[in-house]
């Protein structure tokens, strides 16, 4: 036994939107994301006595959620995909869509998801945190327990590997200036965009 269900419930409520954002973007499937989030919260609850206050609670919680998602991804990768959603996503990726087809944001989402899945979990995790959710590199490093340099190189490798998979979507899309991904702010874990809940 570790934590207090009440305090933990509140902690969860305070951070749930951001934690959910990580889980859903990492795992794509809402059921999987919910399972991972639940698993992570239970795990955090049990391990609260091991929390020594050497990192911000937000980082600690984020790390547990990211790890739960990565574990799930690895488990999933170890067995053949049976979900029709996965197959549909991969089919759509293989077939490609009309270049620049503005018809469906959901197609874009499916393609991005399928493309992300072609990356190793470590690269997926940094791209979810840094590119999708806008966390500064330093915060992503703290969450993942790796150096900022490793975050940067994984980001770079991941983006380069995504390039051919997303070729059909890049036409006409918004571009960012050079060094756009080089966010270096440190401190509290706070996405530059998205997320939506308050800070602890």
């Amino acid at each position, binding site marked *: *036994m*570790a934590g207090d*269900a*009440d*305090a*933990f*419930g*509140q*902690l*969860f*409520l305070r951070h*749930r*939107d951001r934690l*959910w*954002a990580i889980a*859903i973007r990492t795992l794509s499937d*809402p*059921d999987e994301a*919910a*399972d991972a*989030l*639940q698993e992570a919260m*239970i795990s955090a*609850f*049990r391990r*609260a*006595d*091991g*929390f*020594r*206050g*050497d990192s911000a*609670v937000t980082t*600690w919680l984020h790390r547990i959620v990211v790890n739960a998602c990565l574990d799930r991804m690895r*488990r999933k990768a170890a067995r053949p995909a049976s979900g029709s959603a996965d197959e549909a996503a991969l089919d759509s990726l293989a077939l490609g869509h009309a270049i620049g087809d503005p018809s469906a*944001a959901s197609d874009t*989402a499916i393609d*991005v998801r399928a493309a992300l899945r072609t990356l190793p979990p470590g690269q997926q995790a940094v791209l979810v945190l840094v*590119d*999708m959710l806008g966390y500064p590199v330093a915060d992503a490093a703290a969450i993942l327990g790796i150096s900022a340099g490793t975050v*940067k*190189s994984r*980001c*770079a*490798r991941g*983006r*380069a590997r995504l390039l051919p998979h997303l*070729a059909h*979507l*890049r036409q006409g*899309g*918004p*571009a*960012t200036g*050079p*060094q*756009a*991904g*080089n966010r270096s702010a440190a401190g509290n874990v706070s996405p530059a*965009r998205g997320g939506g809940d308050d800070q602890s």
Partner: protein
Amino acid sequence: MTRHVSAEALARYREGDLRRRRLSRVRAHLAGCPRCAALDRDLARVTALLASAPAPAMPPQVTDRIQAALAAERALSPASARHTPGQPARAGQPGGGQPQHAGQPQHAGGGGRGWRLAAAWSPLAARGAAVAAAAVVIAAGVYGGIQLTAGGQSAAGHSAAEPAAGIARSPAMSGGPLLHYLAGGKKAGFTPVSTGTNFQPRRLRSQVRSALQQDERLSAEAGSPSTSAPGTTSTQNAAPNASAPGAGSSQSFAGLPVAALQGCVTRIAAGSRVLLVDVGRYQGRPATVIVTAAPGGGSRIWVAGSGCARSDSDLIAQASLPAAG
């Protein structure tokens, strides 16, 4: 003109992850190479695409479910352990002892070790009270149940953390109601059991094999198979309370409402034949282990959490179980 720049080097350039000399070479090359400049723009758009990919918002029921799970977790801790002298409350959990305190994350750097468990339930935790109660019943059912006395019946594959005298089983185990699930539109029967196993990821297959053996023994004692194929079940041999319309919801097995259990099994089976339904624990948390026949032979193990119902599988884990032999 210098050599073209690879996508990865360009991505590292964009990320500010190149040494100064390389960085200036790339910058100079980009200024005079339309091809690499286009690649650079494409890389920028990859980031933009990732940032713009929509994601569904968190469904409100997920919040409820997680809070309920936290409440259930609390219910499974020391209070239930007191009813089970000599047996860990959550066998197999890392550091699964009984800490006297928990760190207060919010007070990092100060009173981390001073955080005490709250004695009272808050309204927040109480929202999960139904699930918590179910969890308590499961714990009591498992540990307060009858111990098989024949030492030889202790199945292989149980750790030292499992009850030493054999496999604890709940009183409901032998007389579990015959319940139903739907497979391909046809009604089929299953009798849930509670073998008391705390299923673990690494030993899932061996634990499930022993659960299947126990289930088989029970079926032999009862003189009827614990599950039946779709279409072979008639309402005559069903337990009256379990199958009567409207009555199912008031029944429970090992703390789980029968209606939810039937819905859960129907959802998980998804048309396959059910071979075993063991209501117990997985990694210490309430879970139902369901084994279904796999289309190509062998079977499939599904571990569903306490939220499993017709509408949501609450799937925790799954694994294949090759045919024995």
